[in-house]
C-alpha cells in the first residue's frame, strides 16, 4: 500500500469513527491538481492526498472557508509543511478560525512547477521514491529545493505523517488535539528520523541565500524586474497578502493628472510606463516580508518566469533575522503586530542611536 492509499484509508477510518465530517485535500484535474472539499466517505477515492503539484496554498483555501464564521463541521485538512506554517501564521493574523479544524501534514518531497507539470506530468510516487532514496528531485521548484522546514514540526498542525527514513509510514501527533485524534482512531504513534532530509535542504538553502541575492541597488532591482508585467499575480497568490483592500490596487492613490507624468518625465529624463512597478514590489516586501513562509507561489504564479522567491525569500529572510522571528513555526506574534519598548536602537538616528 503506497502513501496515498494509507492516507485515504486513514480518512475513511476517521469518517467511520465519526471524528470528521469533511476533508480538504488535493484532487486530480486534467492537467493539474486542485484542492477539493468533500463531505462523504464514498468521495474519498477522488482525492490524492499527496499531490505532485501545489497550485494554490491550502491555508488560503481554509481562510476562504472560515472567513465569515468558524467551520461548522469537523474538517480534516491535509496540508504540506509550508501550508501548515501558513495556516499557523494566518491564525495569528486572525484570518483563520482554527476551531473544528484538524491539520495533517507530511514529510514533503517537494512539488513540481504547475506549468512544467502540465507539459511533463510526474506522479507523486516518483517524487516520493526519490525522497526515500534521500535525494531532492531535480524536477521540484526552486523554493522546494531550498525549503527550510520540509517536514512537520511539533506545535504546527495536529498530526504528522512520517515517510522518510522508515520502512512503513508512521503517524505521530504534533498537538494535544492530534494525540486525542490518533488515540480515538486507534493508531499507534510511531517515530522516524527526519534530520538527514532537513539537513540537505538547509545546506541548499545556505548556498542559495549567498549566491542568489539581488544586489546592486537600483540597477540590480531594475534588471531583476525588467520583464515584470505588473499583473499583480504574485500578490494574488501570496497567502500572506490577505488584505481585502490592497494599497496597490487603490486607484485614488495611483491616478495622476497628465502633468504629473510630464513633470516626472522632465525630472527623470524619461519614465517607464506603467509607473510604480518597482514600488509595488518594494512595498509588498515591506508589508509581508516579515511573515514570508517560503511557499514560493509568487514565483510559480509569475507569467514571465521571474524568480521572485529570490526577492521575497532572501529579503524576507533578512527581515526575519532583524526581528528574530520565524513565521509559522511557533506562537511568537508577527513583528508587524507587536513591539517592544527596548529594541532596535540600531535603527534610530544616523549612527545607530549613538549621539
Amino acid at each position, binding site marked *: 500500500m503506497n502513501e496515498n492509499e494509507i492516507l485515504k484509508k486513514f480518512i475513511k477510518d476517521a469518517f467511520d469513527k465519526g471524528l470528521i465530517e469533511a476533508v480538504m485535500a488535493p484532487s486530480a484535474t486534467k492537467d493539474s491538481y486542485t484542492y477539493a472539499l468533500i463531505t462523504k466517505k464514498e468521495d474519498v477515492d477522488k482525492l490524492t492526498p499527496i499531490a505532485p503539484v501545489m497550485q494554490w496554498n491550502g491555508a488560503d483555501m481554509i481562510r476562504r472557508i472560515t472567513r465569515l464564521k468558524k467551520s461548522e463541521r469537523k474538517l480534516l485538512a491535509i496540508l504540506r509543511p509550508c501550508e501548515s506554517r501558513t495556516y499557523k501564521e494566518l491564525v495569528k493574523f486572525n484570518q483563520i478560525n482554527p476551531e473544528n479544524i484538524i491539520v495533517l501534514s507530511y514529510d514533503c518531497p517537494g512539488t513540481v512547477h504547475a506549468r512544467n507539470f502540465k507539459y511533463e506530468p510526474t506522479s507523486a510516487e516518483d517524487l516520493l521514491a526519490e525522497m526515500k532514496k534521500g535525494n531532492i528531485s531535480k524536477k521540484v521548484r526552486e523554493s522546494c529545493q531550498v525549503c527550510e522546514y520540509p517536514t512537520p514540526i511539533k506545535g504546527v498542525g495536529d498530526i504528522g505523517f512520517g515517510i522518510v527514513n522508515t520502512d512503513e509510514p508512521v503517524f505521530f501527533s504534533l498537538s494535544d488535539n492530534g494525540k486525542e485524534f490518533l488515540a480515538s482512531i486507534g493508531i499507534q504513534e510511531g517515530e522516524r528520523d527526519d534530520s538527514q532530509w532537513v539537513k540537505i535542504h538547509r545546506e541548499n538553502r545556505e548556498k542559495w541565500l549567498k549566491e542568489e541575492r539581488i544586489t546592486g541597488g537600483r540597477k540590480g532591482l531594475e534588471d531583476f524586474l525588467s520583464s515584470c508585467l505588473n499583473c499583480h499575480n504574485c500578490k494574488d497568490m501570496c497567502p500572506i497578502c490577505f488584505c481585502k483592500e490592497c494599497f496597490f490596487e487603490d486607484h485614488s492613490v495611483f491616478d495622476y493628472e497628465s502633468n504629473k507624468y510630464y513633470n516626472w518625465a522632465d525630472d527623470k529624463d524619461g*519614465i517607464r510606463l506603467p509607473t510604480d512597478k518597482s514600488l509595488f514590489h518594494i512595498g509588498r516586501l*515591506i508589508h509581508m516580508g516579515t511573515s514570508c513562509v517560503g511557499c514560493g507561489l509568487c514565483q510559480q504564479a509569475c507569467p514571465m518566469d521571474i524568480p521572485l522567491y529570490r526577492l521575497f525569500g532572501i529579503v524576507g529572510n533578512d527581515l526575519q533575522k532583524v526581528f528574530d522571528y520565524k513565521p509559522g513555526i511557533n506562537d511568537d506574534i508577527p513583528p508587524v503586530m507587536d513591539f517592544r519598548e527596548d529594541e532596535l536602537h540600531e535603527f534610530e538616528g544616523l549612527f545607530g542611536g549613538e549621539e
Partner: protein
Amino acid sequence: MSEEKFDPVIVGFFCNWCTSAAADLAGTARLHYPASIKPIRVMCSSTVDPVYLIRALQEGADATILGGCHPGDCHYITGNYKARRRVAIVKTVLKSLGFDDTRVLLEWISGSEGPKFARVMNEYTDYIKQRGPSDFKYLDSLGGEEVE
C-alpha cells in the same frame, strides 16, 4: 554640478505633538536650519506607512526623516514603537537590495528640544550633501547615471 552647489531635498514627516512642536520652537528661538528640509506634519509617526518614505525617495527626495516623540512619550501611548519597527523594516529592505539605507532617518525629538531639532537637521543635511544626490529617484526611469 559641483559638491558645494548640491542642494538636497529632504522630506520630513514630523509628528504633530513632538517634532513639529520642536520645529516651531526652533523657529521662535531663531535657530537656523537648512531650507532643504521640507516638513510634513502628521498626527503620529506611526501613521507614516513605509511606502510613503519609499515614495518620497522615488519622487525626487534625496533623503527622508521620520520624527517622533521619545519612546514612552507618545501622545497615542505606543505609536512611536510601531514607527520604529516600520523604519527597521524599510531600512532592512533597502540595505538588503543594495540601496543606501542612511537616506531614511528616524529621530526622536520632543516638543521642548528646539536646539536638538536644529542640530539634527543641520547635521543630516551636511551628511546628505556629502553623500551626494540620491540615485533612488531614477528607479523605473530612463535617466540617471549607469551604475557598475
